[in-house]
């Protein structure tokens, strides 16, 4: 299936979950799926579906 990860199309096996996309070893990360927050505690169980939009965000310098 195809999922849009940070604006880029990625092909993933069926049944892929949020945790498969996130560099789990990194702290200070937030994930949004279809515009809604997916808390870290739910990354393992949240399955992705065809065509969904995932945003994986981290800290960046800013005022």
């Amino acid at each position, binding site marked *: 299936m195809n999922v849009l990860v*940070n*604006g880029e199309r990625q092909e993933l096996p069926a049944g892929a979950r949020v945790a498969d996309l996130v*560099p789990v070893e*990194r*702290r*200070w*990360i*937030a*994930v*949004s799926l279809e*515009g*809604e*927050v997916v*808390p*870290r505690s739910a990354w393992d169980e949240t399955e992705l579906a065809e065509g969904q939009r995932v*945003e*994986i*965000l*981290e*800290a*960046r*310098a*800013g*005022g």
Partner: protein
Amino acid sequence: MSGDRAFELGGRSWESRLIAGTGGFRSLDAMERALAAAGAEIATVALRRIDPAAGGSIMDVLERLGLFVLPNTAGCYTARDAAKTARLAREAFGTDWIKLEVIGDDRTLLPDPVELLRAAEELVADGFVVLPYTSDDPIVARRLEEAGCAAVMPLAAPIGSGLGIRNPHNLELIVESAAVPVIVDAGIGTASDAALALELGCDAVLVASAIARAADPEAMARAMRLAVEAGYVARQAGRIPRRHYAQASTTDEGIPELA
């Protein structure tokens, strides 16, 4: 006035009245040296798409310096986007503090007060400590305070413009009626601007570009720290009134007849 210079913000006490922005530095190393020189306790961060190629993280630096992380909603143009960004920031950084920015226009980067108020109401209801970046409009500031914001952060001038305090009178009006801290955010160009903000009675200033883009950010950070302290002490000391004509500081008594 006692030696206690702390101020209350979001239910906590802070010693430093200089809040540091982290955007615009040439490198993380330059940022680290400047933040240390600024003596700030709070630093802002933004939330962006991960960069798999990134070396060090800004968070390592902030952690090393023991800084309190204040996420922002930079780049949001609607209440909806800002509220979502705030919730993502809460998840990423484990804090319910948010510097709320809702921009109305990409040329001026001025706040959109209608969307800002809407976002503030929503986030306060959701338990956030909301610090809104706002225009220097006393009525908007009052509405934000009534909405439950923990502070109001009026601009001195547009973000990154370095124009200094364009409307000191408005800032005075905001200070006069606000029961929450007033923090000047955006538009500071150099140390005297920061000092003036404190002299006008503002509780703190947030400085980003003026330090980050200075020729020597570390030195400017130190200048800002001193300016904020000077401005605060001057405010407490009570300045003399402005007079139209001169008033001699030396007595007229005992002037000799020399003609």
